[in-house]
C-alpha cells in the first residue's frame, strides 16, 4: 500500500495555486519566475502521479517534455529580465508599463 494518488493530486493542486498566486501577486521578477517554475513542477507531479496510477509511461514521457521546455523558458526569460534590468535598474514588475494604453 503506497500513498493514495489523491494525496499527490492535492499536493500538486496546492503547489500550483501557490505558484499561480505568486505569478500574479509578487512584484519581484525573479520571484515571479520561481513561481512559474513552481507551477511547472506541480504539473509534473500531477502527470507522474497519474501515470503511476494508470501504470502507463505516457505521463512520465510528457514530464520529460515539460522539464525541457521549462529549462529553455527559464533561460530565455532570465535573459529578457537581465536585458530589462540593464536598462531600468529595477526588478519591479509594476514598473514595466511601457505598453500601457
Amino acid at each position, binding site marked *: 500500500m503506497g500513498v493514495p494518488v489523491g494525496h499527490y493530486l492535492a499536493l500538486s493542486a496546492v503547489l500550483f495555486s501557490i505558484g*499561480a498566486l505568486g*505569478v*500574479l501577486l509578487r512584484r519581484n521578477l525573479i520571484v515571479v519566475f520561481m513561481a512559474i517554475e513552481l507551477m511547472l513542477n506541480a504539473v509534473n507531479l500531477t502527470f507522474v502521479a497519474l501515470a503511476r496510477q494508470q501504470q502507463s509511461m505516457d505521463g512520465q514521457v510528457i514530464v520529460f517534455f515539460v522539464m525541457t521546455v521549462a529549462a529553455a523558458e527559464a533561460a530565455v526569460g532570465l535573459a529578457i529580465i537581465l536585458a530589462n534590468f540593464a536598462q531600468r535598474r529595477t526588478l519591479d514588475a509594476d514598473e*514595466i*508599463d*511601457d505598453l*500601457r*494604453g
Partner: protein
Amino acid sequence: MTEFETPLLRLIPLLPLLGAAICMFAASTDRRPLAKIVGPGSVLVAFLLVLFAIARFWQLEEGHSLVDLVSTWIDVSPLRVDLAFRLDALTSVMLLVVAGVGFLIHLYSLGYMHDDPDLPRFFAYLNLFTAAMLVLVLADSLPVLFIGWEGVGLCSYLLIGFWYSDPANADAGRKAFVANRVGDAAFLTGLFLLFWSLAAAGSPTLAFTDVNRLAPELALRSPGIVTAICLLLLVGATGKSAQIPLYIWLPDAMAGPTPVSALIHAATMVTAGVYMMARLSPLFVESPTAMQVVATIGAVTAVFAASIALVQRDLKKILAYSTISQIGYMVLGVGVGAFAAGVFHLMTHAFFKALLFLGAGSVMHALHGELDVFKMGGLKRHLPITSKTFLVGTLAIAGVPPLAAFFSKDMVLEAAFMHGHPVLWLLGVIAAGLTAFYMFRAYFLAFEGESRMDHEVEAHVHESPSTMTIPLVILSVLSIVGGWVGLPHGFLWGDRFGRYLEPVLAQAAHGAHAEGHAVEAGGATPLLLMLVTTAVAFGAIFAAWKMYARPSTVPDEMQARFPRIYDLLWGKYWVDEIYDTFILQPYAAASRFFWKVIDASVIDGTVNGVASFFGGAASAGRRLQTGNVQHYAFAMLLGAVFTAGVYWLWR
C-alpha cells in the same frame, strides 16, 4: 399631314448659339470688335435663314410643315423623345418676331452698350437667349420646347443681373428666376401628367402633332385630367409670361439693361407662355373650365397691371406694368378661344412694346440714366426721332386706328364679347382705357410741356446715334402697318392673319361652351364694339392731355381726394409684401428649422453620436491595457477557468 424634311431648321438656333460661344471667348480674351461683329451678325444670319426657311415653307401645300429631325434624344421605353424642329404657320410668325425684332435689338445694343466694358459678355448672353428662344418656337415636342423654356429663363436671370456688382440687380435676377421656377415646376407636373395619361391611353408621346391629334380622345377618357393638365400648364405660362399670380418679377426686371427689357420682357420671352398655349390649342379647347380660368386670369391681370401703371413715376416701370397688362390681353384672347387673335396681339405688341422700351433706352441714354418722368419734360425738342417714334408707339398701344394694336386689341375684345364673356369684355375695355391714359400720361410728361430736368442733365441732352435710332424707325413703321394683316370682317382683305394660322390653331367653335350665350355673328355688333373701344381710348387720351400735357394741379388734387386708392396703387396692392409674409417668410423659417434642428441636431447628432459612442467604448476598453504583465496573466487565468468551466458544464 406629310412633312418636308430639311436640315435647315437646326441651323437657325445653332448660329446664335455659336455666336454666344464666340462672344464668351471674345469676353475672356478681351476682343471687343469680334463680339461687336459676331453678336448682331449671328442673329442677322439666323434671320436670313428664317426668311429662307419660310419661303421654302410657303412653297408647300397648305397644312404641311417643314421638319428637321436632328437625333433621338431620350429613348427609354415607353418614352421616346426626338430632338426635332418643326416649322408651320404659327412657328413662322414667331420666328419672324423673334429673329427680326431680335436682330433690331442686337443692332440697337451696339449703340446703347457702346461704352460698357462688359459688352462682349452682353452679346454672348443675348445670343444665347436668342438661340434658346428659337429652340422654343421651333420645337416639335414639349420636352424640346422645355429646353428653350428653361434656356430663356436662365438668360433672363443672367441678363437682368448683368450689372451684378449692384446687389439690387442680382436680387432682381434671382427673383425672376425663382418666380419662373415655380411656374416651371407646375409646367413639368402638367407635362408628366400629360405623358402619363397618354401612355395609359396607349400612345406614349409628347410630340405636338400627336398630342394635339389625341387631345379629343384623351378628353373623352378623362376630362378631369385634361383640365388639370391645362391648369398646370397655365401656371407655367403665368410664370413665364408674367401674369397673376407670378408676374412679380417683371417690374423688378427693369434693373437690367434696356435692350434686355425690350427683347426679353416685351417681345419674346414673356410671350412664350402665350405661344405654348396657342401651340397646344387643341388640348386647351377640350377643357372649357381651363379656358375660362385662362381668360379670367388674362382679363383680370390686364386691368390689375394697368391700374398700377397709373401712378408709376419710372418710365420703364410704366412700360413693365404695361407689358403685364398687354400679355393679359393675349391670354384673354387665348382663353376665349380666339387663339389667332392672341397671337396677333403678340406680334403687334412685340413691335410697339420693343419700340417703346428702346425709346425709353434712348431717353435714358440722353439723360444719363434718368427715368423719373416727373424729371423730364419737353424732350421732343431735344430728341426729335426718339419722341416721334415714341409717339407712334404710344398711339399704337392706345389702340388708335389705323395703327397695329387697334386691330389686334379689337380682335381680342370682339372675340371675348362674341363668345359670350361680357364681363371679361368689359374688363378688357376698362384696361384699354387705362392703357391709353397712362401711356399718354407718360408721353406728355416726358416729351411735351416744359422741362423739369436737372440743369446739368439738360445741358448734355442729345439725340441717340443712328445704330439706336434706325431700329426705332423700323419698329415704328411696323407698329403702323403691322396690324394690317388682320383686318375686321368685310374690310378689304379681312383677317388674312387668322386664315393663315387656321390649319394650326384649334377653332373656337369646337368644344368651347362659353358662359352665357354666344352672341350671333351679327354685322352691327362688331362695329359697335369697335366704336366703344375707340371712344374709350380717345376719351382716355383726352383726359391724359388735360391732366398732364401742361402743368396742372389735377394730378395732385386727385391724389389728395383719393388717398387710399393712391396708396393702394402706389403700393402695387401690396402683393410683394403679401407673398413675403405668407409664403417667403414661412418658407425661410421652415428652411431654418430644417437646417438648425433637423440637419444640425438630429442628423449630425446621430452621426457624431455613433462616432462618440465608439470613442467612449474604446476609452473604457483601453483601461484593460495596463502594460502590467501580471494583469495579463490574470486575464489568461480567467479565460482558462472560463473555458474549462464551459466545457465542464456543457459537455
